[in-house]
């Protein structure tokens, strides 16, 4: 590829990383609109000029699906934004989503050479820019569909794993039906990640594109209840099944008082707002506990916890805190979310572990008994293990608490499919490369195999599964 960068490397390194235009924090605290406003073409060009065009494209290896970062940046420099989008789409079918939610600092940007002495290239911003440009141009290049093969594939779950598998399979000429338990499509992208980080119109547009490519979607179908995997492969006439049901079972702390009114799982808190629009009650019928004037604590340190606490801010909480049992450096959330949360007034109560929820005689939450922690030796994850400090108990007054300490696999499909092997944590066992399960013609991928991970990993799994399913359907050998 030709080098479109007119500047010598030294000059490029003098350009500072472009800042993402965003809603002012005072303004965005009271609305649910997207915080980041996106780069203009001029800013995108300026940022792209910083690319050193390294021979050893580290950025590319940092991306879990190998997006050809350097090549798409070149196209941005040439002003060919649609071409850049198409280049990303060769490896990543959801660029408008991943450009917004990937933990870039650990992936592509984490490997960028510029980051060694300064700030890395803003690859995520640029990915988002070209994807948005493409969407707004109305010229999303839908790939051509291969001649029909007569084979039918059922995809269970419409999260990033299911959607990306469906897209690849339909392109290869297979008939694809996606079954989704909820009434809206998109998985965590719809019910989990809030509008202020990922506008739902983007997800709907992706689904719309797939519909135009010929994917059939069926909402309100709980596989395992409405229909079983065996029925899909039998009387329903599907030749292969891809299970992409995510890690949707909330984990609680199992401490006293967890049943009190005002204690939520992050899944429930976020679902009420994102899927059911409880923030617009009474225009929408589903309520959420009125957080106005309340002290809200969210327990956890991942993206889910940050999403919940920033949602609480927008619901009018008097105070919104993160209670996390390790320290800030160990928090798994994206760096940008932590920064945004802090700007929005979220308090970070670190090295704090709740041991009991306290309530009044009507059964409502009034406080959270906590103990202070200190960091001991590293554990299996490599992070230092938090250990309680003796005699450090204290009570945090809160009226709403949201538990965001992780999810497990939802067992509905597995329990109705006895010959599907699962591991002790309840996740489905699948070959990491071809995603085959213990059951013939059944593949599985995404969070239901790996446990809670990332959008890009789920998408990558969906695409590998599509390839493996295509091979299986073409040759018929298992």
């Amino acid at each position: 590829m030709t080098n479109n960068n007119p500047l010598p490397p030294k000059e490029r390194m003098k350009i500072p990383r472009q800042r993402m235009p965003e809603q002012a924090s005072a303004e965005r605290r009271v609305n649910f609109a997207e915080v980041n406003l996106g780069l203009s073409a001029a800013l995108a060009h300026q940022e792209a000029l910083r690319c050193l065009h390294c021979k050893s494209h580290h950025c590319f290896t940092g991306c879990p699906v190998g997006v050809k970062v350097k090549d798409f940046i070149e196209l941005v420099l040439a002003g060919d934004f649609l071409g850049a989008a198409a280049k990303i789409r060769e490896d990543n079918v959801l660029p408008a989503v991943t450009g917004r939610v990937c933990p870039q600092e650990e992936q592509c940007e984490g490997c960028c050479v510029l980051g060694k002495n300064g700030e890395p290239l803003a690859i995520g911003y640029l990915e988002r820019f070209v994807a948005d440009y493409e969407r707004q141009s109305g010229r999303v290049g839908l790939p051509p569909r291969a001649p029909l093969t007569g084979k039918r594939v059922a995809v269970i779950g419409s999260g990033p794993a299911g959607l990306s598998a469906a897209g690849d399979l339909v392109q290869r000429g297979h008939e694809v039906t996606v079954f989704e338990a909820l009434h809206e499509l998109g998985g965590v992208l719809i019910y989990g990640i809030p509008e202020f980080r990922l506008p739902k119109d983007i997800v709907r547009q992706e689904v719309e594109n797939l519909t135009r490519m010929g994917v059939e979607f069926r909402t309100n179908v709980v596989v395992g209840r409405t229909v079983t995997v065996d029925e899909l492969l039998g009387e329903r006439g599907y030749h292969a099944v891809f299970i992409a049901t995510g890690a949707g079972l909330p984990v609680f702390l199992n401490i006293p008082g967890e049943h009190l009114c005002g204690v939520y799982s992050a899944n429930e808190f976020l679902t009420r707002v994102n899927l059911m629009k409880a923030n617009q009650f009474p225009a929408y019928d589903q309520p959420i506990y009125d957080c106005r004037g309340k002290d809200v604590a969210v327990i956890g340190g991942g993206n889910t916890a940050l999403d919940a606490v920033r949602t609480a801010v927008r619901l009018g909480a008097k105070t919104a805190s993160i209670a996390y049992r390790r320290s800030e450096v160990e928090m798994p959330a994206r760096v940008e979310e932590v920064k945004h949360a802090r700007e929005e007034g979220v308090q970070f109560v670190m090295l704090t572990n709740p041991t009991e929820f306290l309530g009044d005689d009507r059964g409502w939450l009034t406080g959270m008994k906590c103990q202070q922690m200190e960091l001991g030796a590293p554990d299996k994850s490599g992070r230092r293990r938090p250990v309680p400090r003796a005699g450090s108990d204290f009570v945090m007054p809160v009226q709403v608490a949201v538990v965001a300490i992780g999810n497990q696999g939802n067992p509905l499909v597995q329990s109705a499919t006895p010959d599907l092997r699962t591991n002790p944590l309840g996740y489905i066992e699948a070959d990491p490369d071809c995603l085959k399960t213990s059951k013939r013609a059944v593949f599985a991928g995404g969070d239901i195999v790996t446990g809670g991970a990332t959008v890009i990993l789920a998408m990558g799994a969906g695409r590998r599964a599509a390839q493996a399913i295509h091979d299986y359907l073409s040759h018929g050998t298992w």
Partner: protein
Amino acid sequence: MYRIIEARFLAPEVKLFRLEAPDIARKQQAGQFVIVRVHDHGERIPLTIAASDATTVTLIVQGIGKTTRLLNTLEAGDAVRDLVGPLGKPSEIHYYGTAVVIGGGVGTAIAYPTAKALKYAGNRVIAILGARTRDLLILEAEMREFCDEVRVTTDDGSYGVKGLVTDQLEALVNSPTPPDFVLAIGPIPMMRAVAEVTRAPGIQTVVSLNPIMVDGTGMCGGCRVVVDGRSQFACVDGPEFDAHQVDFKILSARNAMYRAAEQQALADLNQHPPELHRCRLADAQPGAVTPP
């Protein structure tokens, strides 16, 4: 959209609906429920499948708040936006000997399919149906069709025996042939009272719990109830549980969590005639997604 084939009132504020949902109908077992979303801006509410045939499911709805009242304005030919199921564990049906099935108010509709299944399994089935007053009693004739005995109680004595269902249950428990199994479905105070009657004699008793639900698939944990000191998700681990192990106090408290919002929603609905809402239902676009 899921079409309503039949809609008729069984009692004031209690309406029966037959909806077209072949996939759910085929799978339904006694004790299971569906989640319904009436319209585009609607909430998701659980309703028990009272009966099913080859292509339809029957729901019996008591209009107590905004969503159920709104649902009860619908007629045959209308449709609901979303319908998903069958959810929850089916009732455990065994041969016990004598089974007493207690239905309080709309609980009778929820108990109906299980009572029938118990009879089918060879049990002698005695139904005790309770209502505040005669007009509110439902499904008496349907229960009489297969039950060995049906006892009716009303709070005001306008029909059957004046008194509570537990009076009848106590009489049976103290009779020479006490029941071997009791199923009780109705308001929380009723279920709690039944549990107290059968606890001492150690009669196996099952109740169907009605916590507030959202997804109905185990994803949110909002429906958690405390049974035997442990947290359980009623939508996937239930809704039926051992009555003697249920913490009813917690259930009552949790069900009151949204009272203020519910009252506001109902007041809004009463101010704006339901016709308006009907229009919005009609306007709702089916969208790109087709029901199965």
